[in-house]
């Protein structure tokens, strides 16, 4: 009896660190669409990272002879009103659009989760005050709030990220708080108290790992959302300024030529659409993979 138990344990030992991440990946792999999304997104990341090596032209290089040309062998996605190569600009623009999405989500999720954790763990008055403050943020329409903040802070890469982050903060906080309140009453939290874990330790090493999976899903979807928001900001002239080849800014610059040279709008638009689609597919898959009710 004991021997067989030990054997089982030994054979199980190599997969000791396989853990949660691998399990989620296994679940994800079953979902073809989610994998497609993941692959597209990773491919985009790689392409965007390698932009200097791939792009055929400098993204600022103007060619006065080739203005607003349609797609051709020289200029795959055509050129814009200043004769700049759209393909190169999209590659570089991805760097701005995607990183803006990632960073703003990273900031809003981290800060939001810290706030939510405090509210969720302590409850009572603390919770009340924090939640009412977040209500104030949420009571303003998201786009309007972002516009106001970026108008106050001024345009630019960093400021836009900040403006976007404030926006995503309440949702992240709320989500973690709700999950923590459910998790807080479990006996293992009492057990952790009884062996003398500090409050900080209980929150960080016991409660958060057990309650942040909805936040992962939300963050994945959030990146897509933030990219669109960033593009919208640039489109209305806040956010990243020309000549930075941000996708939204490119759309904005191209809108006056939409009849004569539709390719100027189509390609940046496609880039945004594909990125969002990939991220949403990924998020959907992640949600299914992380859903405890569907476990095994």
């Amino acid at each position, binding site marked *: 009896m004991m021997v067989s*138990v*030990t054997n089982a*344990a*030994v054979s*199980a*030992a190599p997969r*000791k*660190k396989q*853990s*949660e991440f691998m399990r989620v990946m296994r679940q994800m792999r079953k979902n073809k669409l989610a994998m497609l999304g993941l692959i597209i997104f990773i491919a985009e990341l790689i392409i965007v990272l390698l932009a200097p090596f791939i792009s055929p032209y400098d993204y600022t290089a103007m060619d006065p002879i080739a203005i607003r040309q349609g797609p051709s062998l020289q200029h795959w996605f055509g050129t814009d009103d200043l004769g700049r190569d759209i393909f190169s600009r999209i590659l570089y623009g991805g760097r701005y659009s995607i990183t803006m999405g990632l960073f703003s989500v990273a900031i809003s999720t981290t800060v939001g989760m810290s706030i939510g954790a405090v509210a969720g763990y302590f*409850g*009572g008055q603390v919770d009340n005050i924090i939640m009412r403050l977040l209500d104030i943020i949420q009571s303003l329409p998201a786009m309007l709030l972002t516009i106001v903040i970026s108008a106050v802070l001024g345009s630019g890469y960093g400021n836009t990220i900040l403006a976007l982050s404030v926006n995503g903060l309440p949702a992240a906080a709320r989500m973690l708080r709700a999950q923590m309140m459910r998790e807080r009453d*479990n*006996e*293992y939290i*009492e*057990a*952790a*108290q*009884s*062996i*003398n*874990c*500090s409050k900080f330790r209980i929150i960080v*090493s*016991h409660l958060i*790992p*057990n309650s942040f999976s909805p936040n992962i899903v939300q963050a994945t979807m959030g990146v897509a959302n933030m990219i669109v928001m960033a593009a919208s900001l640039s489109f209305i002239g806040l956010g990243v300024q020309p000549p930075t080849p941000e996708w939204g800014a490119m759309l904005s610059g191209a809108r006056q030529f939409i009849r004569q040279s539709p390719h100027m709008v189509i390609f940046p638009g496609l880039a945004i659409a594909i990125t969002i689609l990939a991220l949403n597919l990924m998020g959907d898959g992640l949600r299914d993979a992380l859903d405890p009710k569907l476990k095994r």
Partner: protein
Amino acid sequence: MSEQKMETEPFLQIEDLAVEYYSDGKVISAVNGVSLRLEKGKTLGLVGETGAGKTTIAKSILRILPDVGAKITGGEVKLEGKDLFKLSEVEMRKIRGNNISMIFQDPMTALNPVQTVGDQIAEVVRLHSKGEKHDFVKRAEEMLEMVGIPAERYHEYPHQFSGGMKQRVVIAIALACNPDLLLADEPTTALDVTIQAQVLDLIADLRKKYNTAMLLITHDMGVVAQTCDDVAVIYAGKIIEYGSKEQIFDHPAHPYTIGLFGAIPSMSGDEEWLHPIDGLPPEPFNLPKGCTFHPRCPYATEACRGGTIDMRRTADGHQCRCINIDTVKKQEG
């Protein structure tokens, strides 16, 4: 309380402990003046129905009652003469998990599902001793072996263990720092009978090794018979009968205790019906005046319905909170 016991300072002494919960504007008296004492290395069984306040007593000793909605309204808990309620939170933290530790009722929820069992054992060691990470890991592996789980399973998660094994892990966590006092809150309730026996044996062995005192909370008379030295029967937040195991089992004096034993089906006789105690435990926010058991008591007299009923000594020397001991005794024979 016998005079000679009063002279020496007992290891654990609880005096007049009272705890209230607040909910929806109602005050719920969960524990009303409980006094207990426990000598080093001995086991005290705390027996009573669900909701009688057993777990609350244990949590008050550790001071881990919820911050909001619960309050210790009176009494003292002395561990080797130190009043735990007077200690600062910092001093209390040295005691929790180190001098006093607790085994929880449901091993399914008492472990963190996303942490390996080994890390959970190592955590308590780390919180109470200085050293390097590998020291804690080594101690955790020792503890796993000690409770009969191969150390190779250190890196597995709670869902990979069966209920009995999880309870062993919980026991390993509780005993990892060699506590002087173990609060076992229905340690076997969630387990099936064969595993119950194993777990009780395990606890008994480990306690013998380290001379740990134990407060065993249970509603299973069989478990009490197997493990305890002394027994306190608790009803609606009050101790109603208190004595050595032999006194309680051989000569139960309180009608409630008698009813409890009467409710255990006999293994030898051919019984068609179980013999429950009539009625339900009283609502804790609306306790009956006088003896809290009188609405269900077959011996209740007018005197039971008012005033305070004190503990009194029975013929063979144990204590019982009943004014009709003699009539009860006569009738029960």
